[in-house]
């Protein structure tokens, strides 16, 4: 029977092609993943902007680009961990702003900046714990929990800490200024931090037991639970990690901009981060993707945002274009990871 099959396959070349995709006989364009497509688009866009826009390919702009990219990318790394574990964290920007503003306020009140940062980390841990517990134990969908908790976190900050929109960075902390404005080999420090964080997250997802478990949970939570993974504690720690990353990013923002504006929460920044993750090719149904996808997504979104800013498009127009791109990304994601009526889960919104 086997011999018969192989002989038929040998007679019809088309069948061989379908049967052995690994041999690389498929045309190159069907072998492209979302990741490579987006990378290609980002490159094309970069070249296109460099040629058409006068101010784009200047050292000043490229450094601005890399800075904004590093903020977006770091938030993307935190988001990626939650998304791979079949969740999402829409509170990241709120946590970032409120956490770091609290640290600044504590420093103003006389605490040393390091202690204030520790306090901010403590705040992030508490926020992450609350989100994680609600998602893992109360079993409320993550996307919903974090959407509802975003205003709650911001409201707490607004109620307790915020006295004005802009909170300035402390002038007496030397390393903070270095962090924001120093360059090593002509590259801003913040980019090195992004790289370091990327390596850390990559190592976490790749080599630690907890990191591998995140993939297991994202792929099939029920199976992971039956196999004996500590699903609930893992989910909680996922959100604690993303909240901690958010506060670190807040520190970078304060350093590079000499302060932070609380209105950042009302912008679409968190959706940009989601855009980074989804465009990079991390499936929203979980269990797929990694740090490389975040980097690719970051490059694309970074170039897009920067180009639009140089084009002097209004904030609203930018939002419109971003939402269009996001929609296309979602459509592409759905086409690449199709869900059909037989396998989709009810209640999976």
């Amino acid at each position, binding site marked *: 029977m086997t011999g018969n099959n192989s002989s038929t396959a040998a007679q019809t070349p088309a069948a061989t092609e379908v049967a052995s995709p690994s041999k690389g006989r498929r045309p190159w364009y069907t072998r492209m993943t979302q990741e490579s497509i987006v990378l290609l688009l980002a490159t094309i866009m970069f070249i296109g902007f460099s040629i058409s826009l006068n101010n784009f390919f200047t050292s000043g702009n490229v450094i601005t680009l890399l800075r904004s990219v590093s903020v977006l990318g770091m938030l993307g790394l935190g988001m990626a961990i939650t998304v791979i574990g079949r969740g999402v964290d829409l509170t990241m920007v709120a946590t970032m702003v409120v956490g770091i503003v609290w640290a600044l306020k504590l420093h103003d009140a006389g605490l040393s900046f390091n202690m204030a940062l520790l306090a901010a980390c403590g705040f992030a841990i508490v926020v992450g714990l609350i989100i994680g517990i*609600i998602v893992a134990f*109360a*079993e*409320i*969908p993550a*996307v*919903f*929990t974090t*959407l*509802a*908790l*975003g*205003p*709650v976190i*911001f*409201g*707490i900050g*607004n*109620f307790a800490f915020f006295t004005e929109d802009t909170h300035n960075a402390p002038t007496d902390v030397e390393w903070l200024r270095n962090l924001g404005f120093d360059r090593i080999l002509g590259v801003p420090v913040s980019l090195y931090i992004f790289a370091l964080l990327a390596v850390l997250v990559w190592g976490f997802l790749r080599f630690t037991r907890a990191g591998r478990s995140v993939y297991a949970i994202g792929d099939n939570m029920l199976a992971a639970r039956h196999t004996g993974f500590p699903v609930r504690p893992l989910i909680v720690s996922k959100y604690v990690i993303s909240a901690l990353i958010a506060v670190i990013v807040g520190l970078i923002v304060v350093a590079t901009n000499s302060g932070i504006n609380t209105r950042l929460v009302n912008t*679409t920044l968190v*959706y940009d981060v*989601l855009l980074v993750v*989804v465009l990079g090719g991390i499936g*929203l149904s979980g269990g797929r993707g990694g740090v490389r996808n975040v980097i690719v997504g970051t490059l694309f979104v970074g170039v897009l945002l920067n180009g639009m800013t140089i084009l002097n498009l209004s904030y*609203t*127009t930018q*939002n*419109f274009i*971003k*939402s*269009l791109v*996001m*929609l296309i990304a*979602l*459509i592409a994601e*759905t086409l690449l990871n*199709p*869900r059909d*009526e*037989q396998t*989709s889960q*009810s*209640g*999976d*919104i």
Partner: protein
Amino acid sequence: MSLAESFVRARSKFFPDHLIGEILTKRWSDNAVPFAALIMVVVVFGALNPNMFSAYGLFDLAGQVAEYGLMAIALTVVMIAGGIDLSIGSVFALCALTMLTGMNVYNLPMSVAVAMTLAVGGLCGAVNGLLIGYMRLRAFLTTLVTLIMFRSIYELIMPNFATKIVLGFPDSKVWNELGLGSLFGLPYAVFVAIIIAIVWHIILSRSRPGWQMAAVGGSRRSAFNAGIKVRRVVFMTYVYSGLMVAIAAILYGARLNGLGTDTGIGLEISVLTAVVLGGTTLGGGRGSVAKAMMGAVIVLILQNGLLQMGLLGTTSAMVLGMVLIFGVWLDVRWLKNRHKLLNSSYVSPAYLKLPEDAPDPDKGGVYAVNDLLSTSQPLAIGDVEGPEDVAIDKDGNLYSGSRHGNIHRWLAPDYTKHEIFAHIGGGTYGMNFDKDGNLCVCVGGMGLYMVTPDREVVKLTDETNRSRWSIIDDSRLRLADDLDIAPDGRIFFSEATYRYSVHDWQVDMLEARGNGRIICYDPRDKSTKTVLGNRIFPNGIVCLPDGESLLFCETWACRLMRFWYDGPNKGKVEAVISNLPGYPDNINRASDGNIWLCLIGMRAPVLDLAMTRPGFRRRMTRRVAPANWLYPNINMGCLVKITPEGEVLEAYWDKDCVNHPMPTSCKEDRGHLFIGGVSNNRIGKWPVPGANPEWSEHTKWATYGRAAATKTSEKKA
């Protein structure tokens, strides 16, 4: 009876434990928590801000409730089908802009402006629906993106018209009246909203499109496999949502006649809070207009109350976010644990004291165990499973029901040739032939059916009148058990219990509450009526030849009763035998004018004691796994012959349990007794000593005729 026992008895008699479980089985019990929250919010904020419920405050609130309620219904419709629509705030802003631009800037006729607005709303909904319904994108993120997209469109267009809208004066009486006029002290918008809400209520609860939405949300895969066009249903929900939002925006435009940069911002969160607080499930399948409206009122009062207390917008958003999370948490937990709560509270045992003077078969007497039934000839071994009752037609052919919902027939005279006479579909229990040779059958879970000699299956009835204060629907027949036909052709049948289905019939014993009833079906006007209620598992029925009374058994109460359905004693119930030593099942006529009574099992002291301890049985059903509950012995019983007056003549046992240890029914026919058993695989044929070889069930119609004739002649005399 001790004082403590009297108390237990009174408690189980007057305290309606069983209602708790019954309320939990109702879908509307979901609304209890939101309704309590509504009352609480009204009371708290009414006390804090007396202005809110003044005439003006109410007018203002009512206008907002109308818009809010419509949007909540819009979101509910989407959510029932398993989706979510976060773009409603932006669609709302776009629609309000369209309406006001049409009216104030271009001075269009109102109908044109309304049509345009509806078109914009429907189009936005169609975009969402196309992406989510047909292209299968994720609802949450997709509508989050379209929220940003529609918002940016609004913000791009709005500045061009903002001042013109403020300056414009639409020349439409209807429009101004809609915004400012009132009827009975309430704005017109409220009445618009009420009418739309009623329409949606009917659509969602009583129409095919509404059911299809709930089916898709409840289980998308099953809905797809059942042939529902899932994608189109989902698509349509978003279109409906867009249209509803457009209507809300029209009302908003009429009320405020202006808009700003913040119109519709954050609306998605507050409407979502409203819908979820009302009890609509995130993820689909469950929701209603009533829930949406309750949630809308709660959130509005909460928001307005916080605003009047001078809290900032962000603080109010914070409170709303917390309320939202709390609401979802409550809902998720409720959905997950409701069936557990139901399982542990549905069985609600009552007090039942069985008489202690029942004769003990071990001590001799008429009930003494013997071997008389062992001489029966087993028929149909392996042909049939669970022949609860049997019947014999005029030609002597043998019929029985079965677990599989078939009516079997074995042909006379040797009953070896076997065929399926008819297929009904439910477990078939009591059966009897009527005067015209139709076989009337009680079918568990289905009702009362009839099979004509031509094998046509006819439904006689499957519902009776609903009693006035019942919480679960007691009009459906859940366990029709045995029937007999009165001389005038009326069919009297027993429904053993309406609180349990056929599979759980033994659990009804643990309750021993009056869950059963005697029902009469009158073929003359095809009416069905409950004639006697509140009986403890009424089972066998025999109509007496007097044409005005019948005998019936109450299985768990171990007694034989007589009930007068006509004549001077109409309505009277009297115990004929109140101290049976076992649990009676069917009863049937004997050729000598006496009655055959089947005992399916014998009483045991432990269970008799447990029946007087409802608290003990309740704890047992809550804490012990069902497999380990105390159940009655329904393994070994006997046949008993009694006189219609209640004198026990003789008992017939199968001591060695060879053929018929647990007879559930027997029919005498031409000198033989045919014995059925609900857990048996055979029918017994047993020669009755001293029986009239001419007599059969069919000969009774002739004697009924004579009895009726003598009765009329008596009346004449």
